[in-house]
Structures are given as structure tokens and as C-alpha cells.
């Protein structure tokens, strides 16, 4: 019997991406018992919450989920299913590795950065009011406890993976109280990791430095909103959102999800790039201790890209199916 993993097939292109991943994992002899749970547009259309309580409970019970992209309905009162899962399961650490891939041509060679984005606080607490006509307030919620646990996650990852430095990214020169609390907390945690270099950087400067001196950066740790923006910037540096994996970790639970959205206008066209969800899946395999299969799949992906089999978004002509089959052939070869 394999490891139990909850599976959310997602909306838009989600189901066809999941089909690709299932095929590749099978070719790599990965033994997983998928437990399908519902969330997203189908739930809304059936009159249920966008993430039903039984889905949250099942993921909490199993402890691991793979999630394809979901669509946030546009309109007043709609909440993001992705943020709902992160918030209700307290998945505080969003980890997004960005690394150059063979055959993917970008100006950013030897890119290798891991972004730790705080996932439950900041402006994403979604506390907003119109306080008088024409005047809106949004609360930016930063806590010492929330800042400490993401900082510790970043430093511990650096220590466990032989990384050299952690950079805390903030705007404490302007938001001296909220971002100041985040920065001071990171500085305090840094003292517990004397072998890891610690720097801090203002978020606007960090964006500029990322595209001019990316090789100087190793681990970045950021509050939620800056983390959201900088991780998409970094995904672009890697070659696009179709390549960038992501994971959300809590104390006892983890959800693995690609960075990109559900791209509903590409649904059914057999065109989208499954790389982001595939690398997301290999992060999950590492979490589950399946290191040999992780290495084999990542090797097969690298070989496929290096041979020039690519989807449209990175300059190729391969369909989703052709790209998937090429990776499977590498695994069997």
C-alpha cells in the first residue's frame, strides 16, 4: 500500500495537468493512494462552500495534499480557495524554489534561490472596511509569533540544506511598526543560527537586486504580500509561471501546489506546461521521503528539456501529452 495523499484536481487546466502528473509518477513507480477531495468552482456551482469543511478535515487527517490550480470566482464576497486552505490549515510557510532549468533560455543563469513567504498574515488576513464614503482601510496584520515561525523555517532550511545566507525582505523604513516587528524578529532568530549569514533588504531594492545580482541571493524570507510579488518575479526569472513549483507547510500538514493559476481559457487545448506541477510533485515526494523517485523524475525532466522537447510557453511546440510522454520515455529509458 502506498502513501496516502489527498488530491484536488482543480479548475480550468487543473484536471489535464493532474492527468500528466499521474502518468509520470506511474512511470517512475511512485506508489501513492490518492484520496480525491473537492474544492473550487464545482463546489460553488453545487451550492457548497468553495472549500468544504470535510475537505479541510480530510487533508488535516491525511497530512499531505497535492493541489492543481483552482479559480477564485470574481465578484463580491468570493474568497480565494487557495488562501482559505492555507488559512484554515495554518500552512504558514509558503516555500518556492526558483532554479535554472536546462534548455530554458533566460538572462538569469545559475539562478538558485528559495523563497520563504509567510502565508497567513499581512494584508492577506483580508480585514477590510469602507470606513466612510470614499475611504477604505485594510489591516496589515503582522505578529511576532507569525514572523518568528517563518524566520525559523527559513533558517532551519538553510542549515539543513547547506545554504549560506538568509535575507529578510521588508519595508521597515516606511512601515516602521509592522515591518519593523517582522525585521526585528528575523534579526533575533538569526542569532540562533550563527553559521548562516543574515542580511536584510528593502523590498523595492530587493526586486532591483534580484534582476541584477541574482547570484548573490540564497534564501529570502518575506511577509505575505512581498513574498507573493517577489516569488512571481523570481518565477519569471526562472522562465515563467509554468515552471515554478510551490509548497505550503504547517506544523502537521502540507499542501503542494504550483504557483500558476488555472488558465481556464487554455482548458482542454492540451497545450499547457505541466512542469510547475511536476516539480511541485517532486517537492512532495521529497517530503514523503521518496528521494530516489524525486531524483529520477527531476533527471528525466532535465533531460527532456535539454533535448529540446518543450511546451509553447518556453518556446517549444510540444503538446502537454507529447511533453508528458517524453518525460515518461526518459524514465523508462
Amino acid at each position: 500500500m502506498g502513501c496516502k495523499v489527498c488530491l484536488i484536481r482543480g479548475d480550468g487546466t487543473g484536471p489535464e495537468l493532474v492527468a500528466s502528473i499521474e502518468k509520470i509518477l506511474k512511470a517512475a513507480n511512485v506508489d501513492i493512494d490518492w484520496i480525491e477531495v473537492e474544492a473550487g468552482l464545482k463546489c460553488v456551482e453545487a451550492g457548497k462552500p468553495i472549500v468544504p469543511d470535510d475537505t479541510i478535515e480530510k487533508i488535516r487527517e491525511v497530512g499531505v495534499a497535492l493541489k492543481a490550480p483552482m479559480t477564485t470566482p470574481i465578484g463580491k464576497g468570493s474568497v480565494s480557495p487557495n488562501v482559505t486552505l492555507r488559512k484554515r490549515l495554518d500552512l504558514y510557510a509558503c516555500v518556492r524554489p526558483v532554479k535554472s532549468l536546462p534548455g530554458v533560455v533566460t538572462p538569469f543563469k545559475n539562478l538558485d534561490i528559495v523563497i520563504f513567504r509567510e502565508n497567513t498574515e499581512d494584508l492577506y488576513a483580508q480585514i477590510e472596511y469602507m470606513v466612510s464614503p470614499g475611504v477604505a482601510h485594510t489591516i496589515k496584520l503582522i505578529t511576532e509569533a507569525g514572523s518568528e515561525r517563518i524566520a525559523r523555517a527559513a533558517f532551519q532550511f538553510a542549515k539543513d540544506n547547506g545554504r549560506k545566507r538568509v535575507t529578510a525582505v521588508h519595508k521597515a523604513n516606511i512601515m516602521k511598526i509592522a515591518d519593523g516587528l517582522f525585521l526585528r524578529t528575523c534579526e533575533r532568530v538569526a542569532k540562533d543560527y550563527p553559521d548562516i549569514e543574515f542580511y536584510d533588504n528593502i523590498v523595492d531594492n530587493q526586486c532591483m537586486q534580484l534582476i541584477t545580482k541574482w547570484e548573490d541571493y540564497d534564501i529570502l524570507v518575506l511577509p505575505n504580500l512581498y513574498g507573493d510579488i517577489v516569488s512571481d518575479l523570481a518565477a519569471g526569472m526562472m522562465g515563467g509561471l509554468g515552471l515554478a513549483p510551490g509548497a505550503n507547510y504547517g506544523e502537521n500538514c502540507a499542501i503542494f501546489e504550483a504557483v500558476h493559476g488555472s488558465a481556464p481559457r487554455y482548458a482542454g487545448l492540451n497545450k499547457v506546461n505541466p512542469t510547475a506541477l511536476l516539480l511541485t510533485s517532486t517537492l512532495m515526494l521529497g517530503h514523503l521521503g521518496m528521494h530516489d523517485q524525486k531524483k529520477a523524475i527531476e533527471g528525466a525532466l532535465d533531460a527532456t528539456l535539454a533535448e529540446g522537447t518543450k511546451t509553447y510557453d518556453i518556446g517549444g511546440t510540444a503538446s502537454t501529452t507529447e511533453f508528458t510522454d517524453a518525460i515518461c520515455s526518459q524514465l523508462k529509458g
Partner: protein
Amino acid sequence: MGKTMNLHGVDIYVQSDDIPKFAEQNGSLKLAFISNRGTKVFPPPAPKFKFISIFRCRFLSETEVSPADIDALVKSVSDAGYQWAQCQKLFIQDGVKQFSEPY
């Protein structure tokens, strides 16, 4: 600009180590939810995470209320022994809520 915003409730941010306990109906104002860090913790099910010591308690009325109703409610929270840190009145304009919902 200039449109009327009708008062329908209040979010009271209460200092507490655990989920505060209030009467669910206070005149026309009903306890709609309590959230912690933007995530609903009442009514159940409450997510299993470590709470921070500020809870947002939303009291909402289907009909318009007066500022005096809000003042009385806030006083009742203090009288119940809770320290509140912040209050925010909740408005509805042309039938549309002018405030966000928790996760």
C-alpha cells in the same frame, strides 16, 4: 462620494487568550462570527492553530442600528470583563456590505 452608508454593526477587537464568550443576541445585533488572524474560529468548527491574543468579534444587525446601540454593545463587552483594543463600525451601502468576510 456622498452616498449614505447605513450603520449595521461593529467589529470589536477583544484581547483574550482564548475564544471570548458573548451572548449571541444583543438587541438586534447578533454575534455573526469571531475570527483570529482573519480566520473564523466561531461558530465551530474552529481551525486547530495557536491563537494570537486579539479576536475580532463581529456583531451585525439585519436592520439599521444607531451609534448609541454600538456604544451600548461596546460597553457591555467591557462590563463582561473583556478589554477591547479597537472597534470598527460596519456599514451597508445600497445593500452592499462595506466590509470583508473572514476565511
